[in-house]
């Protein structure tokens, strides 16, 4: 599903965000990418969704080479990914339902089915009572749930969640992680970045990738 070989990312200002990353993630896998702020977790996710391109090495996501020359295919590939952005990227002036449907409109789903799927996704994240609320009127935690609903309503094969526990208290953070991991199945892999390692202590059936100063320092699998 994801294969990185000696991948490096250097930003235009010369900052080396990632160095010699080697990683393999399989379908149905739950992966936590941990590390302190600025360690390169978000940069790694940006590479996986094609927001940045590798400076060195080779990265393949869902069999597509994540290369600048492959932009057209990468744009198509994004339809199969469910991203949950750190800052959510919800669209103001639209309701929760409209935001979720916004991520589905170009997937060729009939309007009735699309609305039904979007409503189900919002129910699954516990927001059935806020379906018609404008997203700017939602709390931080609710907005995050809308972002998750938008990601999963598309029935992606890869869910990427960037720091979903940031700004949340312990209880809500645990709830969000549980919610995200519940979408992992035989075909769908879930990758979550977090700097709050205490939230995932004791988690089983997952792979833990520790990133520090742009390098992977530990890859550890816990089997439940």
């Amino acid at each position, binding site marked *: 599903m994801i294969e990185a070989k000696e991948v490096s990312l250097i930003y235009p200002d010369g900052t080396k965000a990632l160095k010699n990353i080697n990683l393999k993630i399989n379908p149905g896998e739950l992966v936590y990418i941990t590390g302190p702020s600025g360690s390169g977790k978000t940069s790694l996710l940006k590479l996986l969704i094609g*927001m940045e391109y590798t400076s060195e090495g080779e990265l393949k996501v869902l069999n597509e080479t994540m290369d600048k020359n492959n*932009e057209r295919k990468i744009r*198509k590939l*994004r339809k199969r990914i469910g991203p949950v952005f750190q800052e959510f990227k919800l669209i103001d002036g639209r309701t929760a339902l409209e935001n979720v449907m*916004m991520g589905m409109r170009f997937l060729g789903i*009939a309007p009735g089915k699309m609305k039904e799927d979007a409503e189900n996704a919002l129910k699954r994240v516990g927001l059935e009572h806020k379906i018609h609320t404008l997203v700017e009127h939602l709390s931080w935690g609710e907005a995050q749930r809308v972002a998750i609903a938008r990601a999963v309503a598309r029935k992606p094969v890869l869910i990427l969640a960037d720091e979903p526990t940031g700004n949340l208290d312990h209880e809500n953070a645990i709830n969000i992680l549980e919610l995200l991991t519940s979408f992992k199945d035989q075909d769908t892999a879930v990758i979550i970045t977090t700097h709050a390692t205490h939230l995932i202590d004791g988690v089983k059936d997952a792979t833990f990738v520790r990133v520090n100063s742009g390098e992977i320092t530990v890859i550890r699998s816990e089997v439940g």
Partner: protein
Amino acid sequence: MKTFLYNIGYFLSEAMRTIRSNPLSNFFSVIGTGLILFLLGIVLVGWSVGDQIVMALEQEAEISVYLTNPEDQVKIDELTLQLQKLEGVLEVRSVGKEQAKEQMEKLLGNESEILGLFDENPFEAFLEVRINLGQMEEVLNKLQNVNGVEYVRDNREVLEQMKQIADGLKLIGVFIILAVGMTTLIIISHMIRQGIYNNREQINTLRLLGAPGTFIGFPFVLAGTLMTVIGGAIAIGFLLVIINSGYQQLSGALPFIPLPVQEWLQARISSMVLTVSAFLGVMGSLFGLASMRNDKS
């Protein structure tokens, strides 16, 4: 195509949202576009009326053919038939001696009394030949070489000057249309760029979710086209008023000007302005959209 059909309602609501996102600026853009399209409409009205006048004058482009034997009616009839067969000749009419005098009396009006000084009718029978103005030179040469023709009198200079004026007006019109087109394109593309800038975060999110460029861009094209068409509709409203009042004034004061039928002119100008505005709207929006390509996804 399926995705497009499923999302028609969405595209329309997004287009309206884009228009409403910057109401004051878009309002002035629509008014500006309307005024520009009004200018374009005025040029088109000028063209249509000018074309009609030139066409009417061309139809009345008559040449007088004087004969070597104006008294011989058989010869006149033969010559009439002969000239009708010439290429470029539209109609040949025989004008008798008395008819020629009546024509002159009509032309002279109150001064026609002068003709009373003659003991006999001083006019000769002649042939009035209506020709195709575009073939004037050719037809004149042919007529002059026909046996039985003494002299050919034409109003070529006047007609050619009129044609030159009409052609000059057309050339000026072309430049005005080009200027109007360019200005409209600039206004609309600027409007769309502004819309894209205002919605840059939404566009970026849609890109990251995998939305194709056509899906993202279509509402902007729709918004630009809608605004230009609204501008066009405003222009048409003003043009209809202007045409109406122009016809009322001209038909009273200058009844001999061969104006086109008012309803025909109004329908023609309305459809032309509407078509041009829709075309410019689409083109301007596409130019505006081109700026999206330079944004980083």
